[in-house]
């Protein structure tokens, strides 16, 4: 299911390369398929298109954690934390704080 979903959203992104929501959905499909190395650049592209995209930051950080890249994940999570506070989103904030605590200082 996840693989066919990845293929579907890859096609959509090829047809509409400027479609940031499609890009985010492809990135999430890759994340859910545990294809974290491919998910990272897609989340990054979604963030490049929309720099205040909170959940793209959260999933980018989670993908980096899965790849064992703790230090860049902390940088992304700190930016995500700022965005969560600016946008008044309490639920992602709790998740971000948990992740930051797991990754240590």
């Amino acid at each position, binding site marked *: 299911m996840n693989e066919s979903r990845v293929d579907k959203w890859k096609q959509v992104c090829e047809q509409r390369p400027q479609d940031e*929501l499609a890009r*985010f*959905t492809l990135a999430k499909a890759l994340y859910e398929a545990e294809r974290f190395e491919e998910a990272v650049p897609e989340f990054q592209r979604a963030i490049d298109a929309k720099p205040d995209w909170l*959940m793209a930051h959260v999933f980018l950080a989670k993908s980096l954690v899965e790849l064992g890249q703790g230090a860049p994940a902390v940088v992304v999570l700190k930016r995500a934390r700022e965005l969560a506070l600016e946008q008044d989103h309490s*639920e*992602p904030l709790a998740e971000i704080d948990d992740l930051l605590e797991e990754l240590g200082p």
Partner: protein
Amino acid sequence: MTLRAYAAIAFLCGGLTACLARTRAEDPLPGPQQDAAVVADAATSERRVVASAYVPVPPWEAWDWIASSDRLDQWLAQEVALDVIVGGPVRLVSDGVVTEGSISAVDEPTSMAWSLSASGGAQRVVTFRVSGEIGGARIYVDEGPFPADAAGEATAVAHRRRWNQALSVLRAAVMRGLPTEPQESPFTAAP
């Protein structure tokens, strides 16, 4: 109260109990498996479509069917993309018709509201709610408002029919995901 009155009450209660027992034996579900209706707001006469479907999965899994794009595009539209957070975008594409909007409320894993506008159409809010029921969950949908005129009524009726169809597809999709082989059999050896 006379003996005859007591007998009448006992007869009626017995009949009711038997009727309920028979209904439950034939259909263990607590409510209709699926329904949809157009309702009118008492104050404004604007129409709303209310619909619900019973799904034989736990509420948290029912939530997935309304909050994950990979589940939604199995029953609601050919292409569904969304970011489930207040203010997050929602886009549905079906037969080339694009409906876009944003998520106006989220109370995971219980309820979510989308503010949508079809291309050239009026703004509407679709609210989903998940409620636990015996052996599964019920997904409630509320869409509106539709104007209190003949055109609004016709649109609401069409949407009622479409929600009915979509919820049928949802139930079928949920069923497809259920195990079709014995899982933990009562006839396997006890640990």
